[in-house]
Protein backbone atom coordinates (compact mmCIF):
# COMPACT_ATOMS: atom_id res chain seq x y z
CA UNK A 1 0.00 0.00 0.00
CA UNK A 2 2.72 2.39 0.97
CA UNK A 3 4.78 1.83 -2.16
CA UNK A 4 2.07 3.32 -4.40
CA UNK A 5 1.52 6.41 -2.36
CA UNK A 6 4.02 9.22 -2.59
CA UNK A 7 4.62 10.80 0.79
CA UNK A 8 3.66 14.37 1.26
CA UNK A 9 6.12 16.80 2.73
CA UNK A 10 3.40 17.64 5.24
CA UNK A 11 3.35 14.04 6.40
CA UNK A 12 6.34 14.29 8.67
CA UNK A 13 6.03 17.94 9.39
CA UNK A 14 7.90 17.61 12.63
CA UNK A 15 10.04 20.32 11.08
CA UNK A 16 8.40 22.83 13.32
CA UNK A 17 8.70 26.43 12.37
CA UNK A 18 9.97 28.46 15.35
CA UNK A 19 7.12 30.22 17.08
CA UNK A 20 8.73 33.61 16.64
CA UNK A 21 8.73 33.11 12.89
CA UNK A 22 5.16 31.88 12.93
CA UNK A 23 3.92 34.87 14.83
CA UNK A 24 5.56 37.28 12.48
CA UNK A 25 4.27 35.52 9.37
CA UNK A 26 2.01 37.75 7.35
CA UNK A 27 -1.49 36.55 6.45
CA UNK A 28 -0.53 36.64 2.79
CA UNK A 29 2.18 34.02 3.27
CA UNK A 30 -0.20 31.87 5.28
CA UNK A 31 -2.82 32.30 2.57
CA UNK A 32 -0.30 31.12 0.04
CA UNK A 33 0.57 28.11 2.17
CA UNK A 34 -3.09 27.23 2.64
CA UNK A 35 -3.71 27.46 -1.10
CA UNK A 36 -0.76 25.17 -1.79
CA UNK A 37 -2.11 22.63 0.66
CA UNK A 38 -5.56 23.00 -0.91
CA UNK A 39 -4.06 22.08 -4.28
CA UNK A 40 -2.29 19.08 -2.80
CA UNK A 41 -5.01 17.69 -0.59
CA UNK A 42 -8.31 18.69 -2.18
CA UNK A 43 -8.82 15.44 -4.04
CA UNK A 44 -7.83 13.08 -1.19
CA UNK A 45 -10.00 15.02 1.25
CA UNK A 46 -12.91 15.11 -1.19
CA UNK A 47 -12.72 11.37 -1.73
CA UNK A 48 -12.60 10.79 2.00
CA UNK A 49 -15.56 13.11 2.61
CA UNK A 50 -17.54 11.46 -0.18
CA UNK A 51 -16.98 8.10 1.48
CA UNK A 52 -19.30 9.34 4.26
CA UNK A 53 -22.11 9.31 1.72
CA UNK A 54 -22.17 13.08 1.26
CA UNK A 55 -23.14 14.73 -2.00
CA UNK A 56 -20.31 16.31 -3.93
CA UNK A 57 -21.67 19.70 -3.00
CA UNK A 58 -21.65 18.93 0.71
CA UNK A 59 -18.18 17.46 0.38
CA UNK A 60 -16.92 20.62 -1.36
CA UNK A 61 -18.36 22.70 1.43
CA UNK A 62 -16.64 20.49 3.99
CA UNK A 63 -13.34 21.03 2.21
CA UNK A 64 -13.84 24.79 2.17
CA UNK A 65 -14.44 24.72 5.92
CA UNK A 66 -11.42 22.50 6.46
CA UNK A 67 -9.10 24.97 4.78
CA UNK A 68 -10.70 27.97 6.47
CA UNK A 69 -10.04 26.16 9.76
CA UNK A 70 -6.48 25.48 8.65
CA UNK A 71 -6.00 29.15 7.87
CA UNK A 72 -7.23 30.16 11.32
CA UNK A 73 -5.10 27.42 12.89
CA UNK A 74 -1.94 28.67 11.20
CA UNK A 75 -2.88 32.29 11.70
CA UNK A 76 -3.02 31.72 15.46
CA UNK A 77 0.43 30.19 15.33
CA UNK A 78 -0.73 26.75 16.44
CA UNK A 79 1.14 23.51 15.96
CA UNK A 80 2.31 22.55 12.51
CA UNK A 81 3.02 18.97 13.43
CA UNK A 82 1.41 16.43 11.17
CA UNK A 83 -0.72 18.91 9.25
CA UNK A 84 -1.91 16.21 6.87
CA UNK A 85 -3.32 14.23 9.80
CA UNK A 86 -4.82 17.45 11.15
CA UNK A 87 -6.56 18.15 7.83
CA UNK A 88 -8.07 14.68 7.67
CA UNK A 89 -9.17 14.87 11.29
CA UNK A 90 -11.03 18.12 10.69
CA UNK A 91 -12.51 16.75 7.46
CA UNK A 92 -13.58 13.59 9.30
CA UNK A 93 -15.36 15.56 12.02
CA UNK A 94 -17.04 17.97 9.60
CA UNK A 95 -18.14 15.19 7.24
CA UNK A 96 -19.57 13.27 10.16
CA UNK A 97 -21.39 16.37 11.36
CA UNK A 98 -22.75 17.04 7.88
CA UNK A 99 -23.94 13.46 7.53
CA UNK A 100 -25.75 13.66 10.86
CA UNK A 101 -27.36 16.93 9.78
CA UNK A 102 -28.43 15.38 6.49
CA UNK A 103 -29.89 12.39 8.29
CA UNK A 104 -31.79 14.62 10.70
CA UNK A 105 -33.01 16.68 7.80
CA UNK A 106 -34.16 13.66 5.82
CA UNK A 107 -35.92 12.34 8.91
CA UNK A 108 -37.77 15.62 9.23
CA UNK A 109 -38.71 15.43 5.57
CA UNK A 110 -39.76 11.82 5.98
CA UNK A 111 -42.00 12.93 8.81
CA UNK A 112 -44.01 15.05 6.41
CA UNK A 113 -47.30 13.22 5.99
CA UNK A 114 -47.57 14.48 2.43
CA UNK A 115 -44.69 12.33 1.29
CA UNK A 116 -45.83 9.20 -0.41
CA UNK A 117 -42.71 7.23 0.35
CA UNK A 118 -42.97 7.73 4.08
CA UNK A 119 -42.71 4.04 4.83
CA UNK A 120 -40.17 3.12 2.20
CA UNK A 121 -37.20 1.10 3.42
CA UNK A 122 -34.15 3.35 2.91
CA UNK A 123 -31.76 0.41 2.70
CA UNK A 124 -31.04 -0.80 -0.82
CA UNK A 125 -32.38 -4.23 -1.65
CA UNK A 126 -30.19 -7.16 -2.67
CA UNK A 127 -30.61 -6.41 -6.37
CA UNK A 128 -29.67 -2.79 -5.88
CA UNK A 129 -26.68 -3.83 -3.82
CA UNK A 130 -25.56 -6.16 -6.56
CA UNK A 131 -25.93 -3.40 -9.14
CA UNK A 132 -23.93 -1.06 -6.94
CA UNK A 133 -21.26 -3.70 -6.50
CA UNK A 134 -21.04 -4.23 -10.23
CA UNK A 135 -20.81 -0.53 -10.83
CA UNK A 136 -18.40 0.49 -8.13
CA UNK A 137 -16.25 -2.57 -7.94
CA UNK A 138 -16.61 -5.66 -5.91
CA UNK A 139 -14.08 -4.75 -3.24
CA UNK A 140 -15.80 -1.46 -2.54
CA UNK A 141 -19.08 -3.26 -1.98
CA UNK A 142 -17.39 -5.63 0.45
CA UNK A 143 -15.65 -2.72 2.15
CA UNK A 144 -18.99 -1.03 2.73
CA UNK A 145 -20.08 -4.01 4.76
CA UNK A 146 -17.15 -3.57 7.15
CA UNK A 147 -17.57 -1.82 10.51
CA UNK A 148 -17.46 1.91 9.94
CA UNK A 149 -14.22 2.47 11.80
CA UNK A 150 -12.53 -0.23 9.73
CA UNK A 151 -13.75 1.49 6.58
CA UNK A 152 -12.31 4.80 7.76
CA UNK A 153 -8.97 3.14 8.48
CA UNK A 154 -8.87 1.58 5.02
CA UNK A 155 -9.82 4.77 3.20
CA UNK A 156 -7.40 6.91 5.16
CA UNK A 157 -4.65 4.41 4.39
CA UNK A 158 -5.69 4.42 0.74
CA UNK A 159 -5.23 8.19 0.80
CA UNK A 160 -1.66 7.71 1.95
CA UNK A 161 -1.88 8.33 5.69
CA UNK A 162 0.56 6.46 7.88
CA UNK A 163 -0.66 4.48 10.86
CA UNK A 164 0.14 7.18 13.40
CA UNK A 165 -1.76 9.73 11.31
CA UNK A 166 -4.77 7.42 11.07
CA UNK A 167 -4.58 6.90 14.81
CA UNK A 168 -4.68 10.66 15.31
CA UNK A 169 -7.59 11.18 12.93
CA UNK A 170 -9.73 8.43 14.42
CA UNK A 171 -8.59 8.67 18.03
CA UNK A 172 -7.30 5.10 18.10
CA UNK A 173 -4.07 3.49 19.23
CA UNK A 174 -1.43 2.49 16.71
CA UNK A 175 -2.06 -1.14 17.54
CA UNK A 176 -5.78 -0.77 16.92
CA UNK A 177 -5.09 0.73 13.50
CA UNK A 178 -2.81 -2.16 12.62
CA UNK A 179 -5.37 -4.75 13.77
CA UNK A 180 -8.19 -2.98 11.95
CA UNK A 181 -6.31 -2.82 8.64
CA UNK A 182 -5.22 -6.44 8.85
CA UNK A 183 -8.74 -7.60 9.69
CA UNK A 184 -10.22 -5.59 6.81
CA UNK A 185 -7.65 -6.67 4.26
CA UNK A 186 -8.01 -10.30 5.27
CA UNK A 187 -11.77 -10.02 4.84
CA UNK A 188 -11.44 -8.31 1.48
CA UNK A 189 -8.91 -10.90 0.35
CA UNK A 190 -11.22 -13.76 1.35
CA UNK A 191 -14.15 -12.20 -0.46
CA UNK A 192 -12.03 -11.50 -3.49
CA UNK A 193 -10.80 -15.08 -3.58
CA UNK A 194 -14.26 -16.61 -3.66
Amino acid at each position, binding site marked *: *MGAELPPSHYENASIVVPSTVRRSAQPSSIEQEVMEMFDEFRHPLLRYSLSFGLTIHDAEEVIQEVFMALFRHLHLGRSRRNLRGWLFRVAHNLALKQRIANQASSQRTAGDASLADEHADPAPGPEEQLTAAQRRGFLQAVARALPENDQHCLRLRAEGLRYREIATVLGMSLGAVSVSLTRSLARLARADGR
Partner: protein
Amino acid sequence: MLHKDSHQANLHIPDEELVRSADGELSPQRTTEVDTHLKACWDCRARMEEFQSTITGFVRDHHAEFDGQLPPGDGPRALLRARLAEWSDQSTTGWWKRVFHFGVPQMAVVGLSLIAIVTGISWFRQASQKPSYVLFDEEAAPNRSLTPGATRQVALSEVCSVPREEVIGNVPGALRQRVLLEYGISNARPEDYEIDYLIAPRLGGTEDIRNLWPEPYRTRVWNAHVKDALEQRLHEMVCSGQLDLSTAQHDIATDWIAAYKKYFHTDQPLVSHSSIGAATVLELGRVISSPV
Protein backbone atom coordinates in the same frame (compact mmCIF):
# COMPACT_ATOMS: atom_id res chain seq x y z
CA MET B 1 5.93 -15.28 14.51
CA LEU B 2 9.18 -15.48 12.62
CA HIS B 3 11.98 -17.52 14.17
CA LYS B 4 15.54 -17.66 12.94
CA ASP B 5 15.80 -21.27 13.95
CA SER B 6 15.50 -23.32 10.77
CA HIS B 7 13.76 -26.06 12.74
CA GLN B 8 10.88 -23.69 13.28
CA ALA B 9 10.60 -22.63 9.65
CA ASN B 10 6.97 -23.70 9.63
CA LEU B 11 6.12 -20.92 12.08
CA HIS B 12 4.91 -18.35 9.63
CA ILE B 13 4.72 -14.60 9.86
CA PRO B 14 1.37 -13.44 11.24
CA ASP B 15 -0.94 -11.54 8.87
CA GLU B 16 -0.62 -8.35 10.88
CA GLU B 17 3.15 -8.31 10.46
CA LEU B 18 2.81 -8.95 6.75
CA VAL B 19 0.48 -6.00 6.38
CA ARG B 20 2.69 -3.79 8.50
CA SER B 21 5.68 -4.89 6.47
CA ALA B 22 3.88 -4.00 3.24
CA ASP B 23 3.04 -0.62 4.74
CA GLY B 24 6.57 0.06 5.97
CA GLU B 25 5.37 0.16 9.56
CA LEU B 26 7.83 -2.36 11.03
CA SER B 27 11.15 -1.56 12.64
CA PRO B 28 14.13 -1.81 10.26
CA GLN B 29 15.40 -4.89 12.05
CA ARG B 30 12.06 -6.66 11.89
CA THR B 31 11.62 -5.64 8.26
CA THR B 32 14.91 -7.35 7.42
CA GLU B 33 13.83 -10.47 9.27
CA VAL B 34 10.50 -10.58 7.48
CA ASP B 35 12.15 -10.04 4.09
CA THR B 36 14.55 -12.88 4.79
CA HIS B 37 11.70 -15.15 5.78
CA LEU B 38 9.67 -14.26 2.70
CA LYS B 39 12.55 -15.27 0.46
CA ALA B 40 12.55 -18.69 2.06
CA CYS B 41 8.82 -19.26 2.60
CA TRP B 42 6.49 -19.61 -0.37
CA ASP B 43 3.47 -19.80 1.87
CA CYS B 44 4.10 -16.42 3.49
CA ARG B 45 5.10 -14.92 0.16
CA ALA B 46 1.82 -16.09 -1.36
CA ARG B 47 -0.14 -14.52 1.51
CA MET B 48 1.89 -11.33 1.17
CA GLU B 49 1.10 -11.17 -2.56
CA GLU B 50 -2.54 -11.78 -1.78
CA PHE B 51 -2.53 -8.77 0.56
CA GLN B 52 -0.68 -6.68 -2.03
CA SER B 53 -3.20 -7.67 -4.67
CA THR B 54 -6.11 -6.81 -2.38
CA ILE B 55 -4.55 -3.45 -1.58
CA THR B 56 -4.05 -2.71 -5.27
CA GLY B 57 -7.64 -3.68 -6.04
CA PHE B 58 -9.04 -1.65 -3.17
CA VAL B 59 -7.09 1.49 -4.04
CA ARG B 60 -8.08 1.18 -7.70
CA ASP B 61 -11.77 0.81 -6.81
CA HIS B 62 -11.56 3.56 -4.19
CA HIS B 63 -10.33 5.99 -6.83
CA ALA B 64 -12.72 4.70 -9.49
CA GLU B 65 -15.68 5.18 -7.16
CA PHE B 66 -14.98 8.81 -6.36
CA ASP B 67 -12.67 10.30 -8.95
CA GLY B 68 -15.42 10.53 -11.55
CA GLN B 69 -17.38 12.80 -9.19
CA LEU B 70 -14.56 15.24 -8.53
CA PRO B 71 -15.21 18.50 -10.34
CA PRO B 72 -12.47 20.85 -11.53
CA GLY B 73 -10.90 22.79 -8.71
CA ASP B 74 -10.84 26.26 -10.25
CA GLY B 75 -14.17 27.41 -8.82
CA PRO B 76 -13.66 26.05 -5.29
CA ARG B 77 -10.10 27.38 -5.36
CA ALA B 78 -11.27 30.88 -6.27
CA LEU B 79 -13.98 30.71 -3.62
CA LEU B 80 -11.50 29.67 -0.94
CA ARG B 81 -9.08 32.41 -1.94
CA ALA B 82 -11.87 34.98 -1.72
CA ARG B 83 -12.93 33.68 1.69
CA LEU B 84 -9.39 33.81 2.99
CA ALA B 85 -8.98 37.35 1.71
CA GLU B 86 -12.23 38.34 3.34
CA TRP B 87 -11.20 36.77 6.62
CA SER B 88 -7.88 38.56 6.49
CA ASP B 89 -9.63 41.86 5.89
CA GLN B 90 -11.97 41.30 8.79
CA SER B 91 -9.31 40.00 11.12
CA THR B 92 -9.06 42.15 14.19
CA THR B 93 -5.53 41.08 15.04
CA GLY B 94 -3.93 44.23 13.75
CA TRP B 95 -6.57 46.37 15.35
CA TRP B 96 -6.00 44.80 18.77
CA LYS B 97 -2.27 45.15 18.39
CA ARG B 98 -2.69 48.85 17.75
CA VAL B 99 -4.97 49.14 20.77
CA PHE B 100 -2.54 47.44 23.09
CA HIS B 101 0.33 49.52 21.78
CA PHE B 102 -1.74 52.57 22.65
CA GLY B 103 -1.21 52.15 26.38
CA VAL B 104 -3.57 51.70 29.29
CA PRO B 105 -4.11 55.40 30.29
CA GLN B 106 -4.95 56.35 26.73
CA MET B 107 -7.30 53.38 26.47
CA ALA B 108 -9.06 54.46 29.67
CA VAL B 109 -9.58 57.95 28.28
CA VAL B 110 -10.93 56.56 25.02
CA GLY B 111 -13.21 54.14 26.89
CA LEU B 112 -14.65 56.89 29.09
CA SER B 113 -15.16 59.07 26.04
CA LEU B 114 -17.04 56.32 24.27
CA ILE B 115 -19.29 55.77 27.28
CA ALA B 116 -20.00 59.47 27.43
CA ILE B 117 -20.85 59.62 23.74
CA VAL B 118 -23.16 56.62 23.89
CA THR B 119 -24.89 57.97 27.00
CA GLY B 120 -25.28 61.37 25.36
CA ILE B 121 -26.79 59.95 22.20
CA SER B 122 -29.17 57.81 24.22
CA TRP B 123 -30.26 60.80 26.28
CA PHE B 124 -30.67 62.96 23.20
CA ARG B 125 -32.82 60.36 21.47
CA GLN B 126 -35.08 60.03 24.49
CA ALA B 127 -35.29 63.79 24.94
CA SER B 128 -36.14 64.47 21.33
CA GLN B 129 -39.07 61.97 21.50
CA LYS B 130 -38.63 61.22 17.84
CA PRO B 131 -39.68 57.86 16.51
CA SER B 132 -36.73 55.62 15.77
CA TYR B 133 -36.52 54.36 12.22
CA VAL B 134 -34.96 51.18 11.05
CA LEU B 135 -32.86 52.34 8.15
CA PHE B 136 -32.00 48.88 7.00
CA ASP B 137 -34.43 46.04 7.21
CA GLU B 138 -33.15 43.56 9.76
CA GLU B 139 -34.50 40.56 7.88
CA ALA B 140 -33.38 41.69 4.45
CA ALA B 141 -30.19 39.69 4.76
CA PRO B 142 -30.11 35.99 5.62
CA ASN B 143 -28.43 34.47 8.63
CA ARG B 144 -25.06 33.42 7.23
CA SER B 145 -24.68 30.47 9.54
CA LEU B 146 -27.97 29.05 8.30
CA THR B 147 -27.70 30.27 4.73
CA PRO B 148 -24.08 30.44 3.60
CA GLY B 149 -25.08 29.85 -0.05
CA ALA B 150 -24.69 26.73 -2.14
CA THR B 151 -23.61 26.33 -5.72
CA ARG B 152 -23.34 23.60 -8.29
CA GLN B 153 -20.54 23.00 -10.73
CA VAL B 154 -21.66 24.79 -13.82
CA ALA B 155 -20.01 25.88 -17.04
CA LEU B 156 -20.05 29.55 -17.94
CA SER B 157 -21.80 28.73 -21.20
CA GLU B 158 -24.61 27.09 -19.26
CA VAL B 159 -24.92 30.05 -16.90
CA CYS B 160 -25.11 32.46 -19.78
CA SER B 161 -27.71 30.44 -21.64
CA VAL B 162 -30.12 30.49 -18.70
CA PRO B 163 -32.89 33.03 -19.29
CA ARG B 164 -34.02 35.31 -16.56
CA GLU B 165 -36.28 33.00 -14.62
CA GLU B 166 -39.07 33.45 -12.20
CA VAL B 167 -37.96 31.76 -9.04
CA ILE B 168 -40.73 32.84 -6.71
CA GLY B 169 -42.90 29.94 -5.69
CA ASN B 170 -40.67 27.30 -7.25
CA VAL B 171 -39.45 25.92 -3.92
CA PRO B 172 -41.34 22.73 -2.99
CA GLY B 173 -43.68 22.94 -0.02
CA ALA B 174 -41.70 20.54 2.18
CA LEU B 175 -38.47 22.41 1.56
CA ARG B 176 -40.21 25.74 2.19
CA GLN B 177 -41.36 24.42 5.57
CA ARG B 178 -37.85 23.24 6.41
CA VAL B 179 -36.42 26.67 5.62
CA LEU B 180 -39.02 28.41 7.77
CA LEU B 181 -38.46 25.96 10.63
CA GLU B 182 -34.74 26.47 10.41
CA TYR B 183 -35.29 30.19 10.94
CA GLY B 184 -37.65 29.48 13.84
CA ILE B 185 -40.68 30.76 11.96
CA SER B 186 -43.90 28.93 12.65
CA ASN B 187 -47.45 29.60 11.49
CA ALA B 188 -46.26 31.83 8.66
CA ARG B 189 -48.79 32.70 6.02
CA PRO B 190 -47.70 32.20 2.41
CA GLU B 191 -48.03 35.92 1.82
CA ASP B 192 -45.60 36.73 4.65
CA TYR B 193 -42.41 35.29 3.20
CA GLU B 194 -40.85 34.45 -0.09
CA ILE B 195 -38.36 31.58 0.06
CA ASP B 196 -35.58 33.19 -1.90
CA TYR B 197 -32.34 31.85 -3.32
CA LEU B 198 -29.28 33.56 -1.85
CA ILE B 199 -27.23 32.67 -4.93
CA ALA B 200 -29.67 32.70 -7.83
CA PRO B 201 -29.87 29.61 -10.05
CA ARG B 202 -28.78 31.72 -12.99
CA LEU B 203 -25.54 32.36 -11.08
CA GLY B 204 -25.04 28.68 -10.31
CA GLY B 205 -27.01 28.58 -7.05
CA THR B 206 -28.78 25.38 -6.06
CA GLU B 207 -32.10 24.48 -4.50
CA ASP B 208 -30.39 23.59 -1.27
CA ILE B 209 -31.55 24.55 2.20
CA ARG B 210 -28.23 26.34 2.70
CA ASN B 211 -29.00 28.52 -0.27
CA LEU B 212 -32.56 29.41 0.71
CA TRP B 213 -33.87 31.81 3.28
CA PRO B 214 -37.24 33.32 4.16
CA GLU B 215 -37.26 36.82 2.76
CA PRO B 216 -40.12 38.79 4.26
CA TYR B 217 -42.36 40.63 1.84
CA ARG B 218 -42.69 43.43 4.33
CA THR B 219 -39.11 44.62 3.89
CA ARG B 220 -39.35 47.99 2.22
CA VAL B 221 -35.93 49.11 1.13
CA TRP B 222 -33.68 46.11 0.50
CA ASN B 223 -36.38 43.88 -0.86
CA ALA B 224 -36.57 41.02 -3.36
CA HIS B 225 -36.95 43.38 -6.33
CA VAL B 226 -33.68 45.07 -5.46
CA LYS B 227 -31.97 41.70 -5.10
CA ASP B 228 -33.38 40.62 -8.47
CA ALA B 229 -31.76 43.69 -10.01
CA LEU B 230 -28.43 42.76 -8.44
CA GLU B 231 -28.70 39.20 -9.76
CA GLN B 232 -29.37 40.52 -13.23
CA ARG B 233 -26.45 42.91 -12.99
CA LEU B 234 -24.06 40.18 -11.84
CA HIS B 235 -25.34 37.83 -14.54
CA GLU B 236 -24.65 40.44 -17.20
CA MET B 237 -21.18 41.17 -15.81
CA VAL B 238 -20.28 37.48 -15.63
CA CYS B 239 -21.51 36.76 -19.14
CA SER B 240 -19.75 39.79 -20.58
CA GLY B 241 -16.48 38.71 -18.99
CA GLN B 242 -16.30 41.67 -16.60
CA LEU B 243 -16.61 39.50 -13.51
CA ASP B 244 -15.54 36.02 -12.50
CA LEU B 245 -18.48 33.72 -11.71
CA SER B 246 -16.97 32.58 -8.42
CA THR B 247 -16.48 36.20 -7.36
CA ALA B 248 -20.10 36.97 -8.18
CA GLN B 249 -21.22 33.95 -6.17
CA HIS B 250 -18.99 34.89 -3.28
CA ASP B 251 -20.07 38.53 -3.17
CA ILE B 252 -23.79 37.85 -3.31
CA ALA B 253 -23.49 35.05 -0.73
CA THR B 254 -21.38 37.09 1.67
CA ASP B 255 -23.54 40.22 1.81
CA TRP B 256 -25.90 40.86 -1.05
CA ILE B 257 -26.68 44.38 0.12
CA ALA B 258 -22.99 45.28 0.16
CA ALA B 259 -22.69 43.66 -3.27
CA TYR B 260 -25.53 45.80 -4.58
CA LYS B 261 -23.83 48.93 -3.29
CA LYS B 262 -20.57 47.83 -4.80
CA TYR B 263 -21.82 46.94 -8.26
CA PHE B 264 -24.35 49.78 -8.58
CA HIS B 265 -22.08 52.34 -6.90
CA THR B 266 -24.80 53.55 -4.61
CA ASP B 267 -25.68 53.43 -0.93
CA GLN B 268 -29.40 53.08 -1.55
CA PRO B 269 -31.43 51.02 -3.99
CA LEU B 270 -32.05 52.78 -7.26
CA VAL B 271 -35.61 53.95 -7.65
CA SER B 272 -36.10 51.82 -10.73
CA HIS B 273 -35.18 48.70 -8.75
CA SER B 274 -37.40 49.25 -5.77
CA SER B 275 -41.11 48.49 -5.82
CA ILE B 276 -41.89 51.01 -3.13
CA GLY B 277 -41.94 53.95 -5.48
CA ALA B 278 -40.06 57.16 -5.77
CA ALA B 279 -42.15 58.99 -3.23
CA THR B 280 -41.42 56.45 -0.55
CA VAL B 281 -37.74 56.44 -1.37
CA LEU B 282 -37.70 60.20 -1.08
CA GLU B 283 -39.51 59.91 2.21
CA LEU B 284 -37.00 57.37 3.46
CA GLY B 285 -34.23 59.55 2.13
CA ARG B 286 -35.45 62.34 4.33
CA VAL B 287 -35.51 60.02 7.28
CA ILE B 288 -32.02 58.81 6.54
CA SER B 289 -30.64 62.28 6.11
CA SER B 290 -32.39 63.74 9.13
CA PRO B 291 -30.53 63.81 12.46
CA VAL B 292 -31.22 60.96 14.78
